[in-house]
């Protein structure tokens, strides 16, 4: 841990004697100060939620959206340095557009995660750039509709590479989280930012891997989890931003959209109620201090 002053932490892409890249680890520190962001993979879609701290009354309420749409069916929420986030999303849009140009079909979420993972990793290779101060949660709905291999242009090979099995479904909801190192995994529920630890433990309670949570339930859980994660920085006000993407016959018709205001407010009201209930419990069981300092 005593990286400071050893000289191995002053430049990106330099290995320390025990094989670490300290600049990447410092970039992760930038993420730890950002607002909490989460993503939940439900059985019929994906939900994103972001805790947006209100830094000043002068900021326009409801403006300055932090969840972005990449392709029509894919969303990204970032935590960390916001300008890096905009750069990242801009690159993701370029990737999605070039995929469309080449294959005449929207980019699968897994392919986008792979490309963006590679892009972030490239910023750990050279001393002439710095890593992204950013962890991003990327998710979407890949269409289950049967398409010819090369989309509208013609049909592809029937067997071998590029060949397709009859009736096999490839689409569905997908969720990925990409770290400053370029490392990424698929997730059932992902959390990053300042309140990630409490958010993670709440996500674990949901048993998302069993795949029985609906999108509407997901929205309500997401709102609640952001409110729970906010408990540690209670003194600051925040705005809840939420978006979702469902299947073609779901509420968003396969598109990534902002959660409708009415539903968001319903979810927020529920979340507040739950938090107030928990507060009462806390007062009874005081002294059970949580080991919050265990990170690092």
């Amino acid at each position, binding site marked *: 841990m005593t*990286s*400071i*002053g050893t000289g191995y*932490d*002053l*430049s*990106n892409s330099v290995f320390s004697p025990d094989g670490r890249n*300290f*600049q990447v680890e*410092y*970039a*992760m*520190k*930038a*993420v*730890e*100060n950002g607002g909490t962001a989460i993503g939940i993979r439900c059985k019929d879609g994906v939900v994103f939620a972001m805790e947006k701290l209100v830094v*000043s*009354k*002068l*900021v*326009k309420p409801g*403006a*300055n959206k932090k969840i972005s749409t990449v392709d029509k069916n894919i969303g990204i929420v970032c935590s960390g*340095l*916001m*300008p*890096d986030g*905009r*750069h990242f999303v*801009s690159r993701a849009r370029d990737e999605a557009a070039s995929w469309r140009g080449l294959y005449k079909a929207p980019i699968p979420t897994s392919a986008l995660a792979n490309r963006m993972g590679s892009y972030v990793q490239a*910023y750990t290779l050279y*001393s*002439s*750039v*710095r*890593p*992204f*101060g950013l962890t991003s949660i990327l998710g979407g709905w890949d269409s289950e509709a049967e398409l010819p291999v090369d989309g509208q242009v013609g049909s592809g090979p029937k067997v071998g590479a590029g060949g397709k099995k009859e009736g096999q479904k490839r689409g569905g909801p997908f969720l990925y989280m990409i770290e400053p190192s370029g490392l990424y995994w698929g997730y059932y529920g992902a959390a990053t930012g300042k309140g990630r630890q409490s958010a993670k433990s709440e996500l674990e309670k949901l048993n998302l891997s069993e795949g029985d949570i609906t999108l509407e339930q997901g929205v309500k859980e997401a709102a609640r989890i952001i409110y729970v994660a906010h408990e540690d920085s209670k003194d600051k006000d925040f705005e809840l931003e939420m978006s979702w993407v469902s299947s073609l016959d779901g509420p968003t018709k396969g598109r990534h959209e902002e959660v409708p205001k009415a539903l968001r407010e319903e979810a927020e009201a529920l979340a507040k109620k739950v938090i107030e209930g928990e507060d009462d419990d806390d007062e009874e069981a005081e002294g059970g201090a949580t080991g919050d300092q265990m990170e690092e």
Partner: protein
Amino acid sequence: MFRNNYDNDSVTFSPQGRIFQVEYAGEAVKQGSVVVGIVSKTHAVLAALKRNAEELSSYQKKVIPIDTHYGVALAGLASDARVLSNFMRQESLRERLTYGRPMNLSEIANRIGERAQINTQQYGRRPYGVGLLISGVDRNGPHLFEFQPSGMVNEMLATSIGARSQMARTYLEKNLDQFADATKEELIKHALSALKDSLSQDKELTVDNTSVGVVGGGDLFKLYEGQEVSPMLASAFGEGEGEESMEVDT
């Protein structure tokens, strides 16, 4: 002290995850003289305090008209603002040429944000040492964006950047709920009052050191300077001060 190791360039993170070169660029903004921006439901106003190097010199430009529907106010390195405002002019003209429509303010704000971000991630570059308030009216209504050297862009209801700007922001926060429904004249008055709160003791607003940019209500962006601001100063601070500033000029 040990901070010095991590502040040589903008491609080095400190152990706390900060980028000092970007933070220092933010300090350059605080050296610039104060500018204020406010929007109502119909209008957008920029007000700026201009500085002169010495008694005999002219005053440094603070408000730059970009297109017919918007302009920017700057605090910090004027030459960096010139680079960015030239870029904004180009992009605005391109939008008009290719799509036949005025540029959306959110779009132009985000584009310079992305440009500035590049300067914080690649070696051999430095962050822009200027903060901007981008304000005007597009087809979605009046807007005000604050741009920082980090590439951070935020849409605001009202804000102020530059030296002693905290005083102006305190004024703006106090009067925030009056802005939405304010008339053009009221909005200018508020902007000048906020500006005045940021002045150091020995200074006051005159026709020489004040510039005001106004757009909205169907009118194009107009920059008011010199004698044109004297009625604004008069109505904001009463006849006394207005006359005084006229005397200075004659």
